[in-house]
Every structure is written in structure tokens, then in C-alpha cells.
């Protein structure tokens, strides 16, 4: 069940902006066992030259979750979450994510192909503020294991 190449170029946009919360940043930093003070203490972040605390380098995955979910739920892709494996992930940050940011994601399917019997889906998500300031580009590759190979 190879994916239709016509899916390439399809875009998904945030249903509403993601508002970054100070406590969400702390919760995420706690969840990756990272004690760095720049994620929690505004004074520590200011000492590094930031206006406020910053999010860890991989926090952007939280922001992209909703549009990524739209892909997984897209009936035309026919994916089952527990058969999806994360193949690659990359972030290019224009600036760190900070509390109060209102972020909008635009996800584009860059490519679909088959490899080793799996569907391989590559996506690009541009994260920007509601006023259009670019913040981060997130590139992801997902593998979908078909049921019969399980």
C-alpha cells in the first residue's frame, strides 16, 4: 500500500496558535532530566543574554505536535500511530522559543516513498510567530510499518 505521490506538497496548518507557557518549558526540561537553569530561572537566562527563560533545543517538537497529528490522522495516509516509527528529526533554530510566544506551524509533506517494505514520509514544519517572525524549521522522517510485516 504505497502512498500516493500526489500527497507530496500537501500542507497542514495549526488550527490555532500554540502559546508557549513558562511552566510547560519547565515541565519539558524536567521530563528530559535536564537541570539547566536557563529553562527555569529568568535571571540565569538574562545572564546569558536572553530576555526570559528559553526552551530546550528539542522543545519545538511539542509545538509541532498538533500539525504532526493532523498528518497521522489524515485518512488519505491511513496511518496507525503504534506502527509509526520516527526515523529522523532535525531542528534549525532562528531563535530560541520563549514563554509567551504565539507560534503557528505550517507542515508540508516533502516526500513519500517506500523503503524496506515501509512507507517513508518526510515533512518540513515552519514554526513562526503569529506576526510572521520565523523561529524554527523542523524536518522529520516517519516510517510506517505495514500490518502484515509485524
Amino acid at each position, binding site marked *: 500500500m504505497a502512498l500516493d505521490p500526489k500527497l507530496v506538497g500537501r500542507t497542514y496548518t495549526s488550527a490555532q496558535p500554540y502559546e508557549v507557557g513558562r511552566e510547560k518549558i519547565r515541565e519539558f526540561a*524536567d521530563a528530559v532530566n535536564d537541570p*539547566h537553569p536557563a529553562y527555569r530561572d529568568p535571571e540565569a537566562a538574562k545572564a546569558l543574554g536572553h530576555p526570559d527563560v528559553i526552551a*530546550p*533545543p528539542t522543545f519545538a*517538537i511539542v509545538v509541532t505536535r498538533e500539525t504532526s497529528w493532523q498528518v497521522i490522522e489524515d485518512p488519505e495516509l491511513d496511518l496507525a500511530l503504534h506502527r509509526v516509527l520516527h526515523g529522523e528529526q532535525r531542528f*534549525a533554530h532562528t531563535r530560541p522559543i520563549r514563554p509567551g510566544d504565539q507560534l503557528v506551524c505550517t507542515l508540508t509533506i516533502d516526500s513519500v516513498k517506500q523503503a524496506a517494505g515501509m512507507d517513508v514520509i518526510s515533512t518540513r514544519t515552519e514554526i513562526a510567530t503569529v506576526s510572521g517572525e520565523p523561529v524554527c524549521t523542523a524536518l522529520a522522517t516517519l516510517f510506517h510499518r505495514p500490518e502484515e510485516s509485524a
Partner: protein
Amino acid sequence: MAAAISYDDVEPGMALPPARYPVQRADLVRYAGASGDFNLIHWNERVAHEVGLPDVIAHGMFSMAEAVRLVTDWAGDPAAVVEYGVRFTKPVVVPDDGTGAVIEVSGTVKKKLDGRQVQVDLVAVSGGEKVLGQARAIVQLS
């Protein structure tokens, strides 16, 4: 931005201090909650086995977050990591045995780039397997 490391003090081949990051089932449950990724294979053994995995596996994003701590701790300012990418080559298998798994991370300055940036290549090993491939960060130094 204020990295603690000066570009002038860094040469290709320089090793970052290595680190070991433990991971237990409870970490995966907490990461699931914090990240919103409740994929069953990260906490449910039955489903993990059903899809052909040896056991519950860590979120790739959890391993990715652990590995970059080596770089953010070295640079001092986490925002110095301007680019960061990995391939998830092997799963980090996290048994429910009271011990869990360990992700061992090492890093090397691969090359110096323009604009006082360097490329750091990371190696992450768990259970004797390389769990990340092409793990690479571009770091803005002072």
C-alpha cells in the same frame, strides 16, 4: 547569546566531556505526558511486542533530548545549539527491571565553520548499539 566556549579555543578533534544518561520506564511515562506523545510502544509491552519490538522503547525524541545535553552543558548557553539533527538508527530498549537503560553519549568537534560556529558530532550508545546516527549539532560559540 553567550556560549561559555570561545571559537578561538576550539580545534577539530576536540572531545566534549562524555556523559551517561539513565532512562527508566517512569522517564518514558513522564516524557509522554510532557511531550504529548502517547504512542503505546513507549509504555505498553503488549503493543510493543505486537509490532515486533523486543520490549518498550524510549521515544526517539527523548534520546535526542538526552544526547544534546552534552552540547548544551558544554556550550553553557543552550541557545548556542542553532541546529541539531539525528537519525534514530536503533531503539533504546527500556526493560521494566528496576534498572532500565543507559544512553552513553560522546561528542567531538568535527569542524570549524564560518560565523564562529562549529559542527559537533555525537555518538549515542545504549545496550551496546548505536542508537543515533548522523547526530550532529551546529553550535554558535563566542
